[in-house]
């Protein structure tokens, strides 16, 4: 059973509010190592510079969107195995399907609760302690 506190998570969203909300929820779940990036390109640079276990990324962002980030992460061998959870709005069913094609591990519909986020994390990593 992996410990949540050992997870290293990168949160990518162009909205500070969203990043703060996710960080807050992650902290409640017990994740301690959390970094943030404000768009897909910065997220990619961050993930390549400093590998993480999990990327939680918004879809709709300037510069490089979430799907682009996912593709780049998967295409780059050192990061290709990084777990990836995509944040979506309700209307983005098509997007989820595309994200599945590119190898997304899970997705999370906004707005979400901490419990939902935890469930998604456990869907990827198994039960967390």
């Amino acid at each position, binding site marked *: 059973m992996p410990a949540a506190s050992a997870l290293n998570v990168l949160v990518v969203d162009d909205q500070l*509010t969203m990043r703060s909300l996710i960080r807050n929820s992650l902290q409640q779940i017990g994740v301690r190592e959390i970094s943030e990036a404000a768009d897909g390109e910065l997220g990619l640079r961050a993930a390549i510079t400093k590998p993480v276990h999990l990327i939680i990324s918004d879809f709709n962002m300037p510069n490089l969107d979430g799907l682009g980030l996912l593709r780049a992460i998967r295409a780059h061998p050192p990061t290709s195995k990084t777990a990836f959870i995509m944040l979506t709005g309700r209307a983005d069913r098509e997007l989820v399907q595309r994200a599945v094609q590119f190898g997304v591990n899970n997705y999370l519909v906004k707005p979400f609760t901490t419990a939902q986020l935890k469930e998604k994390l456990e869907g990827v990593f198994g039960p967390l302690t």
Partner: protein
Amino acid sequence: MSDDPFEAIKVTFFQECSELLGDLETNLLALETGEGDIETINAVFRAVHSVKGGAGAFGLEDLVRFAHVFETLMDELRSGRKECDDVTVKTLLRASDVLADHIAAAQGTGAPVDAARSAGLVAELEVLTHGQATPAVAAAPVVADEDDFGFKPLTLDLADFGAPAELPSLDLPALDLPSLDLPDLAAPSAAALTAGWRIVFRPHPRLYASANDVSLLLRELTRLGQTSVELDASGLPSLEALDAEDAHLIWTIVLTGDVTEAAVRDVFDFVEMDCDLSITALDGGSPSAETALPPLPVLDAAPAEPAFDLAALLAQAKAPVEAAPVAAPAPVAAAPKPVAPAAPAPAAPSPVASAPAAAPSAPAAVAPVTIRVDLDRVDRLINVVGELVIQQAMLAQRVMESGLARSSDIALGLEDLELLTRDIQDSVMAIRAQPVKSVFQRMPRLVREVAEMTGKRVRLVTSGEDTEVDKTVVERLAEPITHMLRNAIDHGLESPEEREAAGKPAEGTVRLAALHRSGRIVIEIADDGKGINRPRVRGIAVDRGLIAEDAVLTDDEVDNLIFLPGFSTAETITDVSGRGVGMDVVRRSIQALGGRISISSNPGKGSTFTLSLPLTLAVLDGMVVSAAGQTLVAPLSAIVESLTPRIEDVHYVGGHDAVIRFREEFVPMVDVGRVMGFRDDATTLTGGVVMIVETEAGSRAALLVDAINGQRQVVIKSLETHYRQVDGVSAATILGDGSVALILDIDALVIAGHRKSNRPELKMAS
């Protein structure tokens, strides 16, 4: 700010909302003027989407519902399913106004939203989206049942990998990526998506000898599809043993995409004889001899590779986005090159090593970084720096008084300290400087609303939005600008019919401009309306007893009568311009900031309000003078020149009004000591000094003082908060010797001088 993190994030959300609203307005206005493109529409979509996302998290139902309808239309527009025509943009502009109302209501800073207006716009947006209004219920977003998507998470079952004994390593707080042996989830999904090729490429020395360039071949491959390139440099001998003519490197390229083997072979067409080449299909196709090679350790020996890789990655990842006409950013140029070319930096499997290796690249890669700081902290810093400036000045004075030589170490050290203090002060002030954009952005909406209410057609033209000024000044600009804009539209502009009858375009133009002028910020609000009706203004002023019936006033003076308390030209009080508290209130609030306001008018052509304010409310470059035994500070920006008056240059008009000849021009003299009430008798001119000053309106006056003591930067302390407002004084300061000195308000002083001497009948307000 609350301790509850959720509440704190909510504060962040509303801060972010006001930024998003600003972006929204800017982008919509760009669309309105036809300067927008698909990226502008995308930006609008993102702004609305972000508002909705955040609002959902905080359960702000009304806001979510409205933003959702707005977002749906934007989605239609950005996908090109609907054309973004003029009518749509106008509706979007009004929708952004209502969105702002919803946000303000949610935040608790605004009135409750006008439900009818909101519902009306929802209907309009839906008509634009679907061609017809849909029932409101359908528009309300509901959290989707996740099973809808038929999604099963891709599990990384950690327990399947590594014996239990390895798991504790995960509990280590340090990043331990290699031990987290994750299943290869990329491969199946990538394979499901497209077939591809694994190319192992080992050049022979002859390949290099015939001047082939591997990087060109690799680039050629990247054109075919998505590539990832690994370099095996394990065959590379040590530097001493290296034969530069030999070949040691092996590349492994994973190419994904719908590419035929022939296309891949074409790339190597001219070098096939000079290399070992193995091409295998990714989806388990026929393995060729070389697959027997052991898995290649990933080595980052070729220094240019990572940079190349990142740029290529970005280019690929952005590929579908680039289909839209977006100016391609140049991340390639920004991609940093590793510093030490020879250092073999393992690219990934050992993050411990790769993190420091990549670290030098991080600063170059990052765009401008900002942090948010509580304003209180900045203000505290500014206050302390203000004290520091005073303390430094006092120290300098003490040292001078102690009779130390100017060249002494202490005096020189103090000079350096003074420079540093100034640097600190400038830097701190720069933290508070903000463009006036935040205020200007609110104005288009105001203009739309006032135009609607008054039945006038108005175009607002703004310029100089990037002009920077202290944050306090920016904040306090909103009210006077609002008031003056209303005034310009309500009183200045004519109705469309009147305008057409006068041979003007039916649509009136109001210009709102900001600019820096001689150390101050100037805001100009100009309309092309009918101008001030001077006989009527004069008549009202006489009726209200503000001026004597036989007063002789210049046109400018008549125009500026509208700033007198209680003066209101609106015969019937309109909804728009207020209830007669008009321009005198505006003027008072501007004066409180150390600012001035004036109006100039051209009958039939329009009026221009000019408002000028200091750039900062904290410091001032001043000239320290003394008059009648008092120490005073005159703002340096107002002083043109100083001189010792010669008795023959001084003339008297009407017996007692002194004027001085200054370069073939007669300038009225103001005896500062007398006007300020420090003494009653007129000074003898000899022995005094005259400062030629320029008022905001551009007229000149000669201030007579006893002596000029020197130039100094002073920290402004409000007199009002410590005492009360005093005519002719804008603020106070503390000098180096610890004494308090008053800072002169040049314009008020000149007006007071006028009044004291030659116009007793004109009761000018202070």
